[in-house]
């Protein structure tokens, strides 16, 4: 305990964008060439240095594209840094995108063996842990069935179970908790908490601020490839949420979906403010979405979703029936009544889809975590301090003494 687990110094990674990465040799010192090189490359990670002691649970947070995954890829030796170096003391196990290395034709049993060895376990080690893995994944009855016949939930559970049982000193976890149902997520979190008890060093990348706060002993915040904060988790989470809120304009890169080339959102205004806004519980919340429709979309409903600690609380729409949006600018207003949300930090996602009340639809676009809404800690009768939870619901209570 107390020994260094990882020492990273000046880690940087440059990627070529568009076209294949060119091999750079010492001969090509031509200035115009190196300028061209700069234009076609992007630093995914820039001069990141840190030291991690054994047993620390380190949360890594940052927006999409801030270099979190690149950092984990370098630490797990999948890719080499362009500059800088790191020393890693002990075996590294990764939970990067579970299910990697599973072969659909092989049975659960065979895949446990194959994946275990792939993640660096010895054969005897796998045999010893086999039952624990199967029990953890809850797939006892399907262990001799090819995994191509598994449901996606079973598949993910099995994959996580194998990775989580790998004996290693350092564990890298990338966004795995995005899979599985709530109950299984909880199980995984408990598993990770136990890792800490065992004195293992854990790197934990997540958008789930709740998990980051409860699990981590320290947080690194990355911003466009640079380390912008290194320290106490609550402070780190606050820094990150502020950062999410700083951007007033929306970037098309934030959006995913089939309609990204037809619609562009330009701003999201919450109670008259952009990005980070604070509101009293009594105010109610009004979202104003502005944007440009580049091409007529025949059926569409706008949506706003509110999440807390990575958990989606609800999604609301501008109407129940998908309706056409004409080419040109649009402004959409959606309001939720006062005292719906309870005090705390919320993250907001916006977008929309062509689904109705009964069906999912085909076309959509969505951006997660693009603004932060802080509901102030002000308490009243309509917002009972004792009513712990994440939303206030209308209710009636009566009492009789009999």
């Amino acid at each position, binding site marked *: 305990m107390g020994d260094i687990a990882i020492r990273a110094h000046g880690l940087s990674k440059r990627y070529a964008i568009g076209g294949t990465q060119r091999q750079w040799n010492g001969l090509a010192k031509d200035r115009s060439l190196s300028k061209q090189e700069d234009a076609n490359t992007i630093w995914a990670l820039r001069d990141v240095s840190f030291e991690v002691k054994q047993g620390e649970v380190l949360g890594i947070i940052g927006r999409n594209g801030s270099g979190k995954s690149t950092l984990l890829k370098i630490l797990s030796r999948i890719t*080499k840094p362009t500059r800088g170096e790191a020393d890693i003391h002990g075996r590294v196990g990764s939970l990067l995108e579970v299910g990697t290395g599973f072969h659909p034709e092989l049975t659960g049993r065979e895949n446990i063996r194959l994946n275990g060895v792939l993640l660096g376990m010895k054969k005897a080690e796998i045999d010893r842990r086999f039952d624990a893995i199967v029990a953890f994944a809850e797939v006892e009855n399907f262990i001799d069935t090819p995994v191509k016949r598994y449901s996606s939930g079973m598949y993910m559970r099995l994959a996580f179970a194998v990775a989580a049982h790998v004996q290693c000193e350092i564990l890298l976890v990338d966004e795995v908790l995005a899979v599985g149902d709530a109950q299984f997520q909880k199980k995984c979190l408990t598993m990770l908490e136990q890792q800490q008890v065992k004195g293992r060093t854990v790197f934990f990348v997540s958008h789930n601020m709740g998990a980051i706060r409860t699990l981590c002993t320290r947080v690194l915040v990355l911003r466009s490839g640079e380390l912008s904060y290194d320290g106490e988790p609550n402070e780190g989470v606050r820094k990150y949420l502020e950062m999410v809120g700083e951007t007033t304009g929306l970037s098309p890169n934030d959006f995913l979906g089939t309609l990204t080339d037809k619609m562009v959102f330009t701003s999201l205004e919450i109670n008259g403010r952009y990005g980070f806004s604070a509101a009293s519980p009594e105010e109610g919340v009004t979202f104003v979405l502005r944007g440009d429709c580049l091409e007529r979309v025949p059926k569409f409903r706008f949506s706003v979703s509110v999440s807390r600690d990575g958990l989606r609380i609800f999604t609301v729409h501008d109407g129940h029936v998908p309706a056409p949006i004409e080419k040109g600018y649009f402004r959409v207003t959606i309001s939720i009544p006062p005292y719906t949300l309870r005090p705390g930090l919320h993250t907001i996602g916006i977008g929309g889809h062509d689904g109705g009340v009964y069906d999912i639809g085909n076309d959509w676009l969505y951006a997660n975590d693009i603004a932060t809404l802080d509901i102030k800690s002000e308490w009243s009768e309509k917002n009972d301090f004792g009513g712990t939870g994440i939303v206030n619901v209308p209710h009636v209570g009566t009492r009789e003494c009999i």
Partner: protein
Amino acid sequence: MDNKLTEHRSAQDRGPSEISIVHIRPAGGWAPLNAKELWEYRDLLFFFAWRDLKVRYKQTALGVTWAFLKPLSLVAVFSVVFGWLAKIPSDGIPYPLFSLCAVLPWQLFSHILSGASQSMVADQNLLTKVYFPRLISPMSVSLSSLADFIVAAGALIALLVYFHVLPTPYVWTIPLFVALAVMTALGTGLWCSALNVRYRDVGHALPFLTQMWFFATPIAYPSSLVPEPWRIWYGLNPMASVVEGFRWAVLGTDGLPAEMLLVSLSMSAVLCVSGLYYFRRMEETFADVV
């Protein structure tokens, strides 16, 4: 609770000496082979080979039978076209036996070559997500192809019995020729797989290359058709020596002069060593480029 206990015990089993330090440095320069690490990953080598075999014969009715049906059907076609119609000489050996002795090592060679060349692209899912010595992948292809080869050798035994031919006392040298075939295939395959990561053209060029190589190897014809002064240089194609070596060891032909074998051995060694080094040099960028 149980789980925790075993964790604890195994942590003690491992002892402090097993805490290894890994240094991560920027890419560049020629990397040494790092045989120690390969040895540590030997389990993975076998598991990859095992996976290949398992998947290859899953959902097939005939299963492993395919391993010797494939060379036999090729030999049947050759016997009709080259042996019976074209009347190509076979040094006095029954043509089916003559060609099977060549088809067996050839199929071993071509399976390894094509499998190894595709290995990095086929496993790109793994390359970008897990670390393991990348060499394991093409090497495991050699291993699973060897397993197929051993099964296929049953076809040779069957034909020997059928034609009442007794192998020569030199039949023990066969593993050496097999090793030469594997070395040549792996060396070429390593070049192709590393190039394939960056230039997918390799995938298109490879079937053509393999076909040329097939005709440049005395499979359907004896190397005695090649003029005498050229015979030694024929050894620049190591597969020519492998095939003639097989015939010499099993059937007692004399198509393999020692000089030709030497040329082949050197050629194969050059291919193998240069392939290893090129692969090791390129492997650090595989995950970024593939």
